[in-house]
């Protein structure tokens, strides 16, 4: 409209024609937000490093039985606290268990907690965020005040309080971390809904008679997902650190299940005689979290290049 107000334009090519030519030339004909983001992400070396770390880790977690040379909970009495060597790449712990195999199996716990706990947070958060953002009225006020209560807890503190009561175990970790994390998802999703719900295309859908449900699922959801994907990716790293902390404190995963945090607390009393016991599980945590953080940073820049 505004472009056409210039009378000179009439003599030149129509604006739409020009845009169409550009689209065809650059082969962006079916370009979408996600395709553009993926294109930008691929050019970001650090993000691709993060993605590679994440993919390799998931592979390690899935194929743990094939990769690990020993049974992670089998004790070899003659080989207790052996320093790293050819037979035991990362050495053994005081009970004679192979640390390399335990680190490999430990990835299963971390990846599971990271993905499932954050998935729970995201589901709860999206549900309440959608209600709060789309129907902004009393439900909005109530939901956001409840979210404030959850924000009042430092993450790790809340997780400790819940785990103390629920008792240790991996399912309780899913619940504790999952339930604590929903508020941030709700807040992010609510604000992105607020910013798009008055856009023209939503109004158009409503004018065509689309139901609230259809508008949320078909139109708002795909357009509001970008910040959620970014936050979820970064949050997986946080969830993995919190799980490690819980297991370290003895209220997370229980022995003999190999978990990185638990392995660190087991090594705490022996850092003077067997320092390798603490070195490798710690490095595994750092590399894993780094993978998700780099990927998350990359996704943020890819979805919103202006922020960079």
């Amino acid at each position, binding site marked *: 409209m505004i472009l056409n107000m210039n009378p000179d334009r009439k003599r030149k090519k129509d604006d739409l024609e020009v845009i169409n030519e550009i689209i065809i030339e650059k082969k962006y004909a079916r370009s979408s937000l996600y395709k553009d983001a993926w294109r930008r992400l691929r050019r970001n070396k650090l993000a691709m490093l993060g993605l590679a770390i994440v993919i390799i880790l998931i592979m390690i977690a899935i194929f743990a039985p094939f990769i690990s040379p020993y049974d992670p909970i089998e004790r070899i009495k003659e080989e207790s606290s052996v320093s790293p060597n050819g037979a035991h790449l990362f050495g053994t712990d005081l009970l004679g268990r192979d640390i390399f195999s335990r680190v490999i199996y430990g990835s299963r716990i971390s990846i599971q907690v990271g993905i499932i706990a954050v998935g729970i947070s995201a589901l709860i958060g999206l549900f309440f965020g959608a209600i709060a953002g789309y129907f902004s009225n009393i439900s909005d006020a109530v939901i956001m*005040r*409840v979210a*404030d*209560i959850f*924000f*009042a*807890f*430092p*993450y*790790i*503190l*809340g997780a*400790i*309080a*819940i785990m*103390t*009561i*629920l008792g240790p175990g991996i399912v309780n970790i899913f619940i504790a971390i999952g339930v604590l994390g929903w508020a*941030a998802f709700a*807040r*992010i999703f609510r*604000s992105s809904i607020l910013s798009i719900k008055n856009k023209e295309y939503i109004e158009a859908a409503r004018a065509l008679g689309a139901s609230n449900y259809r508008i949320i699922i078909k139109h708002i959801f795909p357009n509001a997902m970008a910040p959620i994907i970014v*936050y979820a990716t970064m949050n997986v*790293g946080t969830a993995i*650190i919190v799980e*490690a*902390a819980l297991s*370290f*404190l*003895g*209220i997370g995963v229980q022995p003999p299940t190999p978990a990185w*945090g638990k392995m*660190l607390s087991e*090594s*705490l009393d022996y*850092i*003077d005689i067997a*320092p390798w016991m*603490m070195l490798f599980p*710690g490095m595994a*945590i*750092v590399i894993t*979290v*780094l993978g998700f*953080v*780099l990927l998350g940073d990359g996704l943020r820049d890819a979805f919103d290049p202006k922020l960079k």
Partner: protein
Amino acid sequence: MLIIKEIDFKYISMLLYIVRRILQIIPVIIGVTLLLFTLLYVIPEDPARLILQKGATEQALENLRVKMGIDKPLYVQYWRYVKQLARGDLGTSYRYRRSVNSILAEHYPNSIKLAFVAIIIEIIIGIMAGIISAVKKYTFWDTLVTVSTTLAVCVPVFWLGMMLQVIFGLKLGILPMSGMGDGSIRYYILPAIALASVSTAFVARMTRSSMLEVISNDYMTTAYAKGLSNFKVIGKHALKNALIPVVTLIGLDLGALMGGAILTETVFSWPGVGRVIYLAILQRDAPVVIGGTLILVFIFVFMNLIVDILYAWLDPRIRYHKREINV
């Protein structure tokens, strides 16, 4: 006359903001107590059994339940719990048969001292690193700061603590590995570094981006054009403006440091409130865990309030729009 009116308006809007902000805290506090009450009294195993251990007669258990009031309906219990909290009483430890208040009061000073040293490290190293990487943008130093802040966020506090113990305590033998000893500053260094690591990284990043924003302003060019030295421009003009968001971040951190204290104090056997909570977890001593957590949450909420009020004072626009917390 007009000026006086403007000042009046400033104070009134400020006052209204403070009142509104305090009113907002009330439901949060009620919600937190309700949540903790549920965790403490509803879900866990029978506290009477925990206190009297095995072998207690059914009659003795019943007597204790009546004495503790846990035979009453839940809303009666909650009301009793709130009244107890309003008096500032956090209950009695299941294990030590002592009031939670006295246990926490005994250990709090040690935690606060440690947090204080951590904040000093955060301010000195975080702000310095941020300034250097902003002023020397895209050089080796900038990359070094960016890489180390990214890594610092990924390293679990407790693992960093253990590594510091091994390197400085065990291999080099220059610093004590754990405990508070005679309370000299040497004992503070390693736990304070571990505690401050993540926050220092955030402060450095925040300082960097805030400095970069300020440096691009026109008045910076003017300052250079006046012929001021680099040191004066950065130190006097840029820093003053760039540090406002950093100061608020540090304020918020006081609360977050308290959460990190549980892990750091456990690794370093530091006799603070974090370690008390950790030991209480192992002994399933719920009143101490919940009481300690409640105090830490209160500190967190209270610091948030102070930071918000400070922020509103420094930046009048905030008073009309709610500040969104960065997540």
